[in-house]
């Protein structure tokens, strides 16, 4: 199963180290392969440095692709995390 969704990053500081860590933690909870894409650049969702080098300040559009049996659950988890602005302002 492949799930693809695009999100707007709305928290004030964008995807900084702590937020990237939360994305990696989330990716690690699922079997599915996770890929993050911004402006045509795609990185592995389990690589904190990959995510940081995507460079996503507030207002960035981030596309997440989940591939695998639990892709749907994984995508829901990401959607929640981003909707909650990663628990920040």
């Amino acid at each position, binding site marked *: 199963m492949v799930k693809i969704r695009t999100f707007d990053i709305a928290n004030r500081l964008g995807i900084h*180290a702590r937020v990237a860590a939360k994305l990696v933690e989330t990716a690690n909870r699922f079997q599915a392969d996770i890929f993050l894409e911004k402006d045509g650049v795609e990185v592995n969702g*389990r690589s*904190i*440095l990959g995510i*940081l*080098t995507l*460079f996503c*300040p507030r207002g960035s559009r981030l596309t997440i692709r989940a591939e695998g049996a639990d892709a749907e659950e994984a995508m829901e988890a990401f959607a929640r995390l981003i909707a909650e602005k990663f628990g920040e302002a």
Partner: protein
Amino acid sequence: MGEDDLKETTVMKGIGVSPGVVIGKAYLFDRRDAQVPLYKLNDPSLIAGEIRRFRKALRESEKQLIELKNQLSDLGGGMQPLYIIDIHIMILRDRKFIDRTIRNIREMSVNAEWAVRMTIDKYREIFDRMEDDYLRGRISDIQYAGQRIITNLGEKNLTVVEMGEGFIIIATDLSPADTAQMKIDRVLGFATDMGGKTSHTAIVARSLEIPAVLGLENITRSVQTNDDIIIDGSAGVVIVRPDPEVSKRYEEKKRLYEEAQDDLLDYAKLPAVTKDSYSVEIGGNIEFIEEIPSAIAHGADGIGLYRTEFIYINRKQLPDEEDHLANYRSVVGVEGLSWSTIRTFDLGGDKFFPNAQTSRELNPQMGLRGIRFCLKEVELFKVQLRAILRASDRGKLRIMFPMISGIEEILEAKRIFYEVKNELLKRGVAVGNDIEIGVMIEVPSAVIVAEELAKEVDFFSIGTNDLIQYVLAIDRINERVTYLYEPLHPAVLSLIKQVVDIGHKAGIRVAMCGEMAGDPTYTMILLGLELDELSMNPLAIPRVKKIVRGSTLKESKTLLNKVMTLSSSSEIRALVEATMQKRFPEEFQVNGQ
């Protein structure tokens, strides 16, 4: 850097990330990070072993961080360092990071330490391109993680910092793991080569409420453990091996900073006007352009004293006109400041020629300094004057000459000033046409001939620190006579009154820029004297404004008149202090109450 350089006063400017002033001893925190060894693996068979060595160091680093995290969570306390350690663990596990490093070892045939260093540099390159300060600052996490691997590739374990009394930590950069190893309650401040407002050192400093200046670039190479050092986190300035005069000023600044309460800051933006509508202008005394934002924030209407000495010291060569100009352009015409008063060089020749055989003066306070020195070294003086003139098209500028003791000196200084001005005009250089010229009134003879001086200048600025020491014959650095230093000495008050009266009679402005101007104990007395401007350490402004706004000119005059009838300093002090305590009980609490 030679031995001698390490004894010189050095001023460094960085990014002030946590406000406040601290004076103490430096402790150089050395993580050996500048010394990453590089060697080539000449035999391809060595590559596999080098990769194993790297993986071992990775595991070791991860283990240490997990242990550290457990220790910290057992201690309870703030959660912030914990998540940072998690991030570092994640970096150590990052496939990209590991693969890149292994590729460096393989393709470049270099040792593991250097391969990690190359990986860090690669990420630095990527992060440097980011436009967002905060995100760009995250390179520090990669550096910390990488540094730990490099350290584990070496033989020794991380140093645990043992500190005695309390130290100011000097480092290239600090990670939470580094600070976790310090007895943090003994740390008085931080100064680092790298870092910015969002780096971990900044976060730690702000949470501990200790001053920190980061991004100093090469502080670790300019300081040795145990050096005296001042950190001004509000201005982003670090002074290494300060001379006693500077230390004294910063002691005062530190005291004021600690006293300053948030509620007092409410007074900063209000005008200094008495209840019966008498207004006095408030200036800020500064010595670095970095202090200007703080001066404005604390309520300075203008800069009443810009000390230019630091432009000269702390450098290998004499400053040229452009060096001066760069400073003056940052002082003049700044939004939020109505005027800026630049004081010309006010030290002795030893600051110009540190290595020349200028004979040491036995009593430099009364030696060849200030305007005396400038009139002897006219070419040097002209460089400064030219730069001041060139900055004058930017906004309201006042220039003042220090140590004037008689009419010849001001005439000669003015002659040179106009000579330089005319040269510039001839060359078509834009020069402000309303520059005011003034003199510091600090030598007692200047008070006596003030009527003559007033004919030659647009303003007086009374330098009480020197005036008091000269008129009472007290060497300010001789502790055995400091008890005689008394701004309320009737002779001092009478001299100040003479200066104000003579100045006003001649129709010129009279300012005061000595420490007396910023001490709220004297505010009503100074109001009564009707000074036009009080210029002080910016941190002192809010409290002085509070006093001004709570007083009337009428009661201040009554107090002054009464004081002028008393014959001893002790009677005057008793009356002034009692009056201030009665009028402003909150500001002048008696000890023990």
